[in-house]
């Protein structure tokens, strides 16, 4: 990380302000504006789309180049973690499986 402390604090405050406005939105507006149906329908897809966009590149292209091979430890360990996540739906179990396999592969 190469950001100055002022920038970090700026980030924290700007993101925090936005988060508060998102949380306050309809608690403030209720009675004046109704949430339109298309908006609630769109919002349903936010977690799946964003989280996948964060996960998949970190596994498939960890060094900015697409690398689908057995030599890509993050891909192999990530697939194992994905199986653990699917069956357990539990963060700790996913971390335990994924990190253990990642560490073993790096030792080999």
């Amino acid at each position, binding site marked *: 990380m190469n950001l100055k402390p002022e920038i970090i604090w700026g980030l*924290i*405050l700007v993101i925090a302000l936005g988060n508060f406005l998102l949380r306050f939105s309809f608690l403030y507006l209720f009675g004046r504006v109704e949430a339109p149906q298309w908006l609630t329908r769109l919002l349903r*897809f936010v977690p799946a789309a*964003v*989280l996948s966009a*964060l*996960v998949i590149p970190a596994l498939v*292209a960890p060094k900015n180049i697409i690398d689908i091979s057995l030599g890509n430890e993050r891909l192999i360990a990530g697939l194992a973690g994905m199986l653990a996540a699917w069956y357990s739906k539990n963060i*700790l179990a996913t*971390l335990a499986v994924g990190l253990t396999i990642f560490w073993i592969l790096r030792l080999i």
Partner: protein
Amino acid sequence: MHAFHKDFLAGVREIIPILLGVIPFAMISGVSAVAVGLTGCQAMGMAAFVFAGASQFAIYQLLAINASPIVIVMTAWIINLRFIMYSASLAPYFQKLPTRTRSLLAYLITDQAYAVSINRFDKEETVNHQAYYLGTAVVMAAAWYFSSLVGIVLGSQIPASWGLDFAFPLTFMALMMPAIKDRPTAVAAIVGGSIAVISKPLPYNLGLILAAVTGILSGFAAETLQNQIHLRKIL
């Protein structure tokens, strides 16, 4: 006043089992914040002001790969768009309260406090909504701050050579799986993930924003298509 007390405690009681998952999550987020190079004070600022786990993890991952600040802000906000949904769904229960009280309740919105409270509000009309919600949300916030602090203290003891940055994609995976509930949400995940890989060379990690937006729109389109096919079968 007695009823307020009783319903507040009911909220506290029903959020406690959920803390079992929250406490380690907050601790890991504290460890991660320190691992990417934030000071203890900045890491605690994230926990208290940003106060949203998944987006905090995204911020740390993006800081670790030196993404541009604008992309970091946009990504964090997009992840938290779901709060609009929670806000809209809680609003009818709190409409009679003064604006200042509602702003406090708004700050305290989390996935967990929302889910537990709305579940109760749907079942039982007579509960004091403000009291019950505060019971869940205040305990949740206290657990979040305290466990984050523990993680921050522990985090400064863990060497970088452990490759703990790999904890980010693993954490998101565990959060993503429950979000894939049906075909349209699966479409959103597949399109979001694929576009993110293809558009990775774009500057400032803008590919992430592009991937999120196209993923959300694809899910929406898939759902619309599904509804139309379903409608045609009925008719």
